[in-house]
């Protein structure tokens, strides 16, 4: 950024908060905010609970929080572990139920909330939401917190006829993804305070018409920027982010393809293995002495088939969804990067215009330009913080995923091994049994 020290921040105490709000933030929330000036570290911001009620859209508290987060990231590898003791908002998605009406059939999920936060009237809530509602929430969050990375939802559209929307497997997978989505938001120090989230978690009936007013605002700013001012210089770190995301996305795609191929090969192997087992079974009837070993081998093969089926299920239900979730995450992140670029472009456009005008009539730097600059700086700060958070979550998620898959694989082989070992024991016992009966 060409600008040196950040200017016009609330911490300077020069301007009331309300005026420095991001133009895209929800204007509907009146803000009664007191700001922690001077970045007081004991403000208890680490756990996301501000000392006094504040909207997370307030840039100063945000800045302070980010600064603290940044300091913390250096020490803490796993932000989750750190916040567990201080977490005060717990959400769970469970209990999928089919809702049948004359118009349509859909699944609703129970969303349970437990919290000690003062933003919530009650300590516990239980509401029922359908996918549409989650989608609404996500859109609202994206619109009201454009500088932040919003976690992805599972795929919205499924090909009817190809995937059964009401199959246990599909619903289970989707529910897990929705649960993850909400948990990620609940753990986010900024997003978890979003009033839309609050509404989502508590309202009996979601009034979704709120979105309309917002959309027009979004449209406006997009139009403005689309007027087209090219970005002068994207800061290196954001370029790096973009490149990383592209490569990462590519690798995710490759891994997904390989995983699917493995599933296919495994399924074909399973078919042959089952057939193989039946050949042993069919031989049993012909023999007398060999009956036991043949039956035994057939039994072991069947056990291995079962274990392999389980492994395949694990892969489809646990492994693939996470890959896909991160592909969506990458898309989200790229969107946010684009918006950041837009924001920077807007600033630079206004700045250039202002400079030209300044040269002409020596008027002071207009407020809008400063506002824009702040916006950009906040955006960058939010983004960097979220990026770090995302990276950390990603590391954890993938570590868990890959070690999880490794464990499942080991489990599979252990099951098979146990089956074969018990066969040998059985046959050896029989042998000693026969020997003793012979000598008797």
């Amino acid at each position, binding site marked *: 950024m060409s600008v040196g020290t950040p200017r016009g921040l609330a911490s300077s105490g020069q301007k009331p908060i309300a005026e420095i709000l991001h133009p895209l933030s929800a204007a509907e929330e009146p803000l009664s905010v007191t700001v922690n000036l001077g970045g007081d570290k004991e403000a208890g911001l680490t756990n996301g609970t501000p000392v006094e009620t504040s909207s997370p859209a307030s840039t100063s508290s945000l800045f302070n929080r980010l600064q603290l987060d940044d300091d913390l990231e250096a020490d803490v590898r796993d932000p989750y572990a750190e916040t567990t003791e201080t977490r005060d908002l717990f959400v769970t998605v469970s209990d999928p139920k089919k809702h049948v009406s004359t118009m349509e059939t859909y699944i609703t999920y129970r969303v349970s909330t437990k919290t000690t936060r003062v933003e919530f009237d009650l300590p516990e809530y239980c509401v029922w939401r359908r996918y549409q509602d989650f989608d609404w929430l996500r859109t609202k969050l994206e619109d009201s917190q454009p500088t932040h990375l919003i976690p992805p939802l599972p795929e919205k559209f499924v090909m009817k006829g190809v995937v059964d929307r009401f199959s246990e497997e599909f619903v289970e997978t989707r529910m897990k993804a929705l649960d993850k989505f909400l948990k990620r938001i609940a753990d986010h120090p900024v997003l978890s305070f979003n009033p839309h989230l609050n509404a989502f978690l508590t309202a009996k009936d979601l009034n979704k018409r709120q979105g309309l007013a917002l959309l027009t605002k979004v449209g406006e700013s997009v139009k403005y920027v689309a007027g087209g001012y090219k970005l002068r210089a994207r800061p290196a770190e954001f370029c790096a982010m973009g490149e990383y995301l592209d*490569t990462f996305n590519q*690798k995710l795609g490759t891994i997904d393809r390989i995983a699917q191929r493995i599933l296919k*090969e495994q399924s074909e192997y399973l078919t*042959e293995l089952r057939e193989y087992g039946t050949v042993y079974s069919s031989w049993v009837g012909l023999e007398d002495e060999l009956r036991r070993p043949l039956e035994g*081998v057939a039994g072991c093969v069947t056990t291995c088939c079962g274990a392999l089926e389980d492994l395949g299920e694990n892969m489809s239900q646990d492994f693939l969804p996470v890959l896909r979730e991160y592909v969506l995450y990458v898309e989200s992140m790229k969107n946010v990067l684009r918006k950041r670029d837009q924001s920077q472009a807007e600033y630079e456009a206004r700045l250039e215009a202002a400079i030209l005008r300044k040269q002409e009539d020596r008027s002071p730097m207009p407020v809008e330009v400063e506002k824009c600059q702040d916006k950009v700086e906040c955006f960058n700060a939010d983004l960097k913080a979220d990026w770090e958070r995302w990276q950390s979550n990603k590391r954890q998620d993938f570590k868990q995923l890959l070690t999880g898959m*490794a464990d499942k*694989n080991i489990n599979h082989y252990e099951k098979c091994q146990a089956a*074969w070992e018990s066969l040998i024991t059985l046959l050896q016992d029989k042998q000693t049994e026969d020997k003793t009966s012979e000598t008797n």
Partner: protein
Amino acid sequence: SIHPSIYPSIHLSIYLSNDPNVLQRSMVEEGSTLVRRMEICVAEAEKRSGKNAVNMQETFTVYLIETRCFAICISSCLTSAVHEFTSAFSPDSLWRRYSEFELLRNYLLVTYPYIVVPPLPEKRAEFVWHKLSADNMDPDFVERRRIGLENFLLRVASHPVLSNDKILHHFLTEEHGWKEVVYETGFQAKADSRIRALSATFRVRNPDKRFMEMKHYSDQLQSHTSQLLRARARVADRLYGVYKVHGNYGRVFSEWSAIEKEMGDGLQSAGHHMDAYAASIDDILEEEEHYADQLKEYLFYAEALRAVCRKHELTQFELEMASQDLISKKQQHEELATGIVRTFSFKGMTNKLFGQEAPEQREARIKLLEELIAEGEDTVKEKTVECEEHVERAWVDMQRFKEQKDKDLREALINYAVMQISMCKKVEKSISAPELFGA
């Protein structure tokens, strides 16, 4: 006056020589006080080239047969131990090619039709799964064949009947001129008729029920072993695919690790493990081929068993034919002698219609018939003996075969289980390597 329990009639002991590739087993002849022990092994295989029967250059493999004789003196005392003298003889050795083994086996088949003759390893690679080479020159194939040939010799040499055969001893000890000796036995002529008889269809009136059951069993055994071999090959093919696709992970994890900071090492190591996993399938499947070879041996043994049953059918059929022939000749004789026609015959009819022959002719015919009847009775006696002997001897050997089959296949199945266990352990070990993602 040696107590028979000092040594069993068949004794197989296994020695491991200094060379781990050579398994030596020994055989003991039944019932002699001077027990001759011969160690046999097929030690090596070599490529040779030479001119074949039609004077064309060809490449073939020869196998080195090593034999070593021991002399053992058993003391006359009931409880005393066996004194063993290890001869200072260096092993005799000679080279044989597969076709010579085939010749030996064909000779044995013809000479001992009541014995379930051990089979040779397959002539061409069958039941291959895709990667396995079907090429006879492939070193893995040659190695498995070497083992199979050794197995064949050991089985033959430990057989209570076959082990005494002179041609067998010749095969093991005289490299040159052996073929001529075999042909001199004249077995070739019998071999051709045997093959014809095996594939001929004829109806037997009273076959021994046990042999019919045994024949049915041999068909079933063939069917099940070949089904199993086919299914196993398909499974191997698919398993190979699964392992190899995992190998693709190796590269992508490695590429991914390049863009990561903290995760980089873990991903690299994961990639390496994937590569190792993918590579491990080759050894696993190679080992399984030995199991397949054991199954194949009994697939081919089933054929040999069937042949013994068919031989029974043949001898029984010939006996029935001879008996039938004798009966009809006796009937003809009776008709001619008494003039009473018991059964309708065209000859009889034409005789009645067109007049009977002259008395001298009739006499001549009666005399001829009497000679033929005498011959016929001898034939029936011969055939009866042949049939009974075959039944008796074959039944003994089929029982022996059954016991051997049960023992061998049981062992093979157990070894298969052991193989599976060791494979599981190997994979578990490679997956759970501690450096995967760090603890």
